[in-house]
């Protein structure tokens, strides 16, 4: 247990190794480790962000889907409504048309009746006049009795 030059030798060796590990070991390894730490942190952050993005996208997709469904339902509903409306309109048109035709027909019938009656009336006057002529043996002056006869025909 002698204290001797070994003490100084060890000191020099110690300082040398400290310097060596400072210059060639610590800096390089620490730099690489720090860089990896940063990479990992970045990676985790990116994964986080991707997760959030995915969630957002899913939410968006769900929203779009819901919107599309609602739109489709709306379209179907309005189509149904439109169809009903068209049917109703057609029905209405048909009814109107039928009414119109019926009215026209009725008017025509009435006109025919009136015409027939007019003809009949005219003919009745003539017939009556002829009958009377036959009865009176031409003693009747057509011009004199025309007014009388017309009155008769109008009462028919």
């Amino acid at each position, binding site marked *: 247990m*002698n*204290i001797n030059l070994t003490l100084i*030798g060890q*000191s020099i060796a*110690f300082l*040398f190794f400290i310097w*060596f590990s400072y210059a060639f070991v610590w800096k390089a390894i620490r730099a690489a480790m720090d860089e990896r730490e940063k990479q990992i942190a970045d990676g985790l952050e990116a994964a986080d962000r991707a997760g959030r993005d995915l969630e957002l996208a899913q939410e968006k997709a769900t929203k779009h889907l819901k919107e599309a469904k609602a739109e489709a339902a709306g379209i179907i509903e309005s189509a149904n409504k439109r169809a009903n409306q068209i049917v109703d309109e057609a029905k209405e048109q048909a009814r109107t048309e039928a009414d119109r035709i019926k009215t026209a027909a009725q008017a025509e019938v009435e006109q025919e009746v009136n015409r027939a009656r007019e003809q009949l009336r005219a003919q009745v006057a003539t017939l009556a006049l002829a009958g009377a002529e036959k009865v009176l043996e031409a003693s009747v002056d057509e011009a004199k009795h025309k007014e009388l006869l017309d009155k008769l025909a109008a009462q028919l």
Partner: protein
Amino acid sequence: MAGETLTATSYIQHHLTNLTYGKLPEGYERQNADGSVEVLSQDTWTLAHTSQEASDMGFMAIHLDSMFWSVFLGFVFVLVFARVASRIHSGVPRGLQNFVEMAIDFIDKQVKDSFHHKNAMIAPMALTIFVWILLMNTMDLVPVDWLPHLATIVSGDPHFFFKVVPTTDPNVTLGMAFTVFGLMIYFTIAKKGFMGFVKELTLHPFHAEKWYINVILVPINFALESISWISKPISLGLRLFGNLYAGEMIFILIATMFSAGLVLGLFAGVLQWAWAVFHILVIVLQAFVFMVLTIVYMAMAHQVEEEDQFH
């Protein structure tokens, strides 16, 4: 083992003596192996043949085995780490890089926990201290006779001294501790200036407002602070040395039992195994303690105390 021709005492003595190369003074009486005495006619640099010679060499001697193993293990440390550092990448770490990064991370955490100043030297220093001391301490787990025995075969000298655990040499531990102490003083002066260092030594722990009281307090403070400063490296170095020396001593004592018959030999084997397992704890703990204390001392050196700002 090698102990058959030796007594237990000389065996232990042999194991506790370093391979010393030093200067023997002029007129020194050297005892040769055959018993003849040789008187040196001049100062001679030579290998010590006995532990007596080793201690007679005084300060002008160097422990070749301690220096060899500590420098060798230091190079094992720096070369392994530098090799990893030279091909390091920030991708997925593999194999040795994993291990090295684990060590770096551990040290970095320790340093950040107790050292809150800006100094890029502290962390590499802590790393060097921890790994190097750990490696040196680990030499303690190599059975005590293996490497010394190998050394006697290689050198051809049956009395070749060879201590393989550098940290059981107080020169090594105190050498490191005093280096830490030197760095502590250096950083104190670098950080607070020479006057700051002087003030730290003379104006603490007692301090008065009146200058004439301070004049009386300064020597008291200086005495107290000097003791507190000088006790740091000494306790730092001796703690490591004491723990490892005691551990080594137990291994040597256990090893003396190997030559005492089969039953005791087997018993010694079990004991040696058990002590080695326990010693793993000591090895790591002492390396860790040395490192942590160094970090703390460095933090103290960087600490600018509030009082200093008023003077």
